[in-house]
């Protein structure tokens, strides 16, 4: 569904992303992991077209990203960048309804918006002014916005969701809630790409993990293949123990306190 071939992005002499090959297919959750400055957000911005690569190309449904008509693309693909401020006093419901703008039916979608807000556990905030929301509340509202953008798409066909650290401000309960929403979307056939920091959450909810370091994708595979003591230790420069997560069939990582 999304395919990147040989993506490189440089700012001056510094290479932020170096010859990245990757893809997301229908119905899977792919988590992008790596230390700070590894190039995760840059790669996501390249994949969604916000930045143009110096080399390489991004395809959505086998068609180069630049050839898509923006509105057509927006009906099939939603992107949630890291949190940004809203300068005016919109209500949370109005913000969620903005997700319908590529479909042009926002005025008829209030029920849909409220349902999406219920899924992301923020229905009670619908009438609140967004400038008064906390970071975590805003993240749930924004997640509901991208949800109404693609979950109720006219074209049920290929759809994709890209999330850049969507749970950074959430408490553990809401973190799991948000990732469950993403996993449920994947079950409906949506391809989900999500930048995460928490290895255990990634192992629990993602079908495939990509580990980045210094602009390169260094390891790729299922959680069990990627999360090993050697690989995690090498990528993050830490010493870890990996055990089986007692709540599900996924590896779980524990970091040693002294290095």
């Amino acid at each position, binding site marked *: 569904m999304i395919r990147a071939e040989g993506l490189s992005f440089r700012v001056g002499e510094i290479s932020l992303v170096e010859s990245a090959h990757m893809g997301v297919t229908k119905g899977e959750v792919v988590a992008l992991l790596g230390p700070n400055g590894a190039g995760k957000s840059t790669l996501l911005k390249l994949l*969604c*077209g*916000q930045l143009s690569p110096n080399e390489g190309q991004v395809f959505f449904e086998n068609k180069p990203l630049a050839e898509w008509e*923006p*509105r*057509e*693309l*927006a*009906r099939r*693909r*939603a*992107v949630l*960048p890291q949190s*940004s*401020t*809203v*300068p*005016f*006093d*919109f*209500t949370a419901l*109005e*913000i969620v309804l*903005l*997700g319908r*703008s*590529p479909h042009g039916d926002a005025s008829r979608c209030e029920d849909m918006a409220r349902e999406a807000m219920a899924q992301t556990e923020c229905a009670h905030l619908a009438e609140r002014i967004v*400038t008064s929301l906390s970071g975590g509340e805003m993240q749930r509202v924004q997640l509901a*916005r991208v949800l109404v*953008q693609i979950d109720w798409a006219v074209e049920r066909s290929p759809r994709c969701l890209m999330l850049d650290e969507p749970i950074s401000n959430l408490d553990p309960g809401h973190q799991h809630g948000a990732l469950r929403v993403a996993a449920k979307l994947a079950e409906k056939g949506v391809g989900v790409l999500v930048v995460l920091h928490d290895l255990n959450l990634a192992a629990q909810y993602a079908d495939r993990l990509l580990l980045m370091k210094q602009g390169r994708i260094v390891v790729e595979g299922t959680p069990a293949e990627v999360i090993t003591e050697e690989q995690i230790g090498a990528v993050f420069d830490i010493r870890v123990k990996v055990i089986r997560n007692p709540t599900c069939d996924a590896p779980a990582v524990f970091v040693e306190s002294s290095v």
Partner: protein
Amino acid sequence: MRRRRAVFVGLVLALLATAVCSLCVGALQIPPADVWAALIGQAGEARYESVLWNLRIPRMLLGFMVGGALAAAGGLMQGLFRNPLADPALIGASSGGALGAVFVIVMAGTFFPDLPLLSDLRILPLASFAGALIVTWLVQRLAATGGYTAVATLLLVGVAVNALTGAMIGFATYLADDAQLRTLSFWTLGSLGAADWQVVSLAAPFCLALIFLAPIWATVLNALALGEAEAGHLGFRVERTKAILIVLTAAGVGASVAFTGIILFVGLVVPHLIRAMIGPDHRWLLPGSALLGAILLVLSDTLARTIVSPAELPIGILTAGFGAPFFLYMLLRQRRKALWT
């Protein structure tokens, strides 16, 4: 929904009331019944008809258009720069327009007194449009990086352009004779006194284009509240829209400045009042601002030409007198919301 309808009905009624008031009141008081008689061509007194058709009606129309254009431009710029402090005068667009117009006047009067093109009234709105366009574009380039507009840069560009305009107008003052001096104060303080039918017809296409076309892009402005990248991900062509809106704003502001001088704070205050009444949705904010801007400017003008009658107060004194304290109040509120970084 119901509240929005009530506000719009109220605004339209207020607009009508303002029209009646501005036509009746002045150095020569005309009773409403006689205004109506004159409008349908059956005036009791010939001088009523003359005052109305030659002075008050064109002046009222110019006031409605300029007030509407300035307020709509303010709402539009605030959405475009994602910043509630943007205002055509504060960021220098108005000054840029004045600079263009004064430049042409000084050039025409001093260096090319025989060149008919430059002294033609029709060249003024174009020169002023160009000035406003250059400044708005410059502000956009300087202050907006990565989809985020730095308030400090926004206002500092305004300071620089205002200083340049001040120097230019100072230069013109230095060259001007006594009679011209009085008219130059027009640029810095604003006045609707120049209104006649020719001015109205020259300003109309620019002002009306802004007022009636701007709402077409209201949904993009709503999406822009999320951020420029976010609006792009929602399928809007952000760069193209920004270019169109900058041209529209410059057209409205430029034409306003060319014929009425710099009128401060209308563009800043009015959209805030409308947001407080019906919320920030640009589909309603832009037309609502245009209506309230038209009302407030014509009311201020009616006040300006009656309180020291038969003389006239420059209208900018009134709008700045009300607008500047409001701006300070907003700065205090903004600081608490920490939009200043």
